[in-house]
């Protein structure tokens, strides 16, 4: 019974890993740049939802919209200020610059919000508690799962079924050809960053229902998102979603048997799969 319970909990948290990873993989797929600061943006998203609640009294379920909008703006800004100048530069420059953003955001959060953790008291989602047989699903877990699945599907639809999505995919496949077809690739890049970071804005709002937020809150999620993206294959949205769920389940199952080795289980899965199949589960490059 315990095992079924942890698998269910694993799928529920895994769905949020998926949403975070989809944002990361989308940015990589188009710009070929891995955003090392992704976890830090998630932490900012959590703070946005927290302050929407503590200052304006908005429940985190409404905070989803605020988080998405603010983080989309942050993504757009990050692109125009920094990333735009890195296209075509060496991998060292690209990796180190988003790493610099990570360090800066971490410091900014400590300076602006202080080192103590903050939690939303009594969110709407927290009032619900489902008991299915002996399996317990809490309101925040359910809200997180439904929200993450909904927005992951929306992003997938946006990319695969709309004209904007076609432009994004075309830019990811061949920037030069896309530009020749009349696509404004820079605008597509900026849009990709906005969409990618709105994913973490949404995920941040979903997380504050049950997790307190502190300046290091995003680190673990960020690392898990790297693993999920690499596992699913860099650039593959479906791959990242599946990998997120796999990692969520693996982490919870490992935590049941050896709590201190939960992260090691994730790392182990990443290393084994990447070493056998360096391009990831569904990756092509």
């Amino acid at each position, binding site marked *: 019974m315990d095992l079924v319970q942890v698998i269910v909990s694993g799928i529920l948290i895994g769905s949020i890993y998926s949403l975070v990873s989809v944002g990361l993989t989308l940015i990589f797929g188009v710009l070929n740049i891995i955003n090392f600061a992704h976890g830090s943006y998630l932490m900012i998203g959590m703070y946005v939802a927290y302050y929407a609640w503590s200052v304006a009294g908005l429940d985190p379920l409404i905070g989803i919209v605020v988080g998405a909008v603010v983080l989309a703006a942050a993504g757009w800004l990050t692109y125009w200020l920094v990333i735009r100048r*890195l296209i075509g530069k060496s991998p*060292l420059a690209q990796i180190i610059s988003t790493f610099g953003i990570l360090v800066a955001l971490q*410091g900014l959060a400590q*300076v602006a919000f202080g080192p103590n953790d903050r939690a939303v008291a009594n969110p709407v989602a927290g009032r619900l508690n489902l008991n299915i047989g002996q399996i317990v699903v809490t309101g925040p877990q359910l809200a997180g799962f439904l929200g993450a699945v909904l927005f992951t599907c929306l992003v997938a639809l946006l990319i695969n079924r709309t004209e904007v999505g076609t432009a994004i995919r075309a830019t990811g496949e061949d920037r030069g050809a896309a530009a020749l077809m009349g696509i404004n690739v820079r605008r597509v890049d900026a849009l990709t960053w906005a969409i990618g970071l709105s994913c973490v804005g949404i995920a941040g709002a979903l997380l504050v229902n049950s997790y307190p937020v502190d300046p290091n809150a995003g680190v673990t999620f960020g690392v898990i998102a790297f693993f999920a993206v690499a596992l699913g294959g860099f650039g593959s949205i479906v791959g990242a979603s599946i990998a997120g769920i796999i990692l969520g389940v693996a982490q919870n199952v490992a935590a049941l048997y050896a709590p201190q080795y939960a992260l090691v289980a994730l790392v182990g899965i*990443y290393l084994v799969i990447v070493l056998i199949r360096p391009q990831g589960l569904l990756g092509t490059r």
Partner: protein
Amino acid sequence: MVAQGTAPAGEEVTSTPASTVGSRFSGSRWRAGAGLGLVLVVLLIFPHVLATPFWWNVGILAMIFATAGLAWNVLGGYAGQISFGNALFFGAGAYSTVVLVRAGWSPWLTFPVGAAIAAVLGVLIGIPCFRLRTHYFAIATIAVAEIADVVVNSNSSLGASSGLNIPIKPYGLATLQFSVLNPTPYYYAALILFGLAALWVWVLVRGRTGAYLRAVRDSEPAASASGVHAWRMKLLAVAVSAIITAVAGGLYAMYGLFVDPSLVLDLSVSIDIVLVAVLGGAATLFGPLIGGWLLIALQQYTRQEFSSSTSGLDLLIFGVLIVLIVLVEPGGLSVLLGRGWTWGDAKVQRFRQARQAASGAKEAP
């Protein structure tokens, strides 16, 4: 700063036409030598000029982290394999020293052991992980270092999360323990360590090996096609990097007489090492010196000033600096300073020439 001129000087020889080599080479070499001497003198007299516990602490930590940054440069800067997991080697060195000194060893004998353990770890990790390119490799290094952190954290014979301390012995060179009231011997030990490491790395990268490493960094397929054993070069780079980092870690443990996972194995330690190397200058010898001093001085200053270990102001400054440096001059502060030096030099030269021309024109009639 000026000493960094040695590296470009070496490159200039190959790129400048033969006729101008002699004069330019000797000029820049003389200046590089003078610069190196100046830096050395400043470093040698530093603990006597700024003789306060605060600056002693900064100096010791700065030299230790400069050494670790230099070691990172071998792997990340010259060979282009970006590692966010060098804390593993730092921790391996620190833990080896603490465990062996507790078992009654002389600290001097523990450094080679720690270095050997780190080198073996590095090669063992490198064998599978060097198949991975850029981002995959960088993420794998985080992964491996995190595993080590978790393993040590839950291993009670290594003190788990509460750490291990070194029993206090009589002060002296043999025990490598010195009074807290005057820790300058630690500073000179760290300075000598940096000097030896820089010498080793310089010997390694100035010749053929350095060219091979850079070739692997710039394009691995091209390097392999030209007959470079890319695989062997990367293993060499990780071994050298691990050895130097481990000795720095061992010295760090002797200075603190204590070690725990959050001090030496945490992701933040890996991040500090990368910051030192990249701020100062990736693929330079003396960049990490600038990076180390800047990082540690600012870290310690903000910690003292805001009386909290988590003020975050230092991180904010470094993060912004890193981004700016990558955008403006990916070569780091040392290249930026070098550029400022040449710019100033050119100005002086032009001024002299103009004055000579003016005086010449006056004398002519």
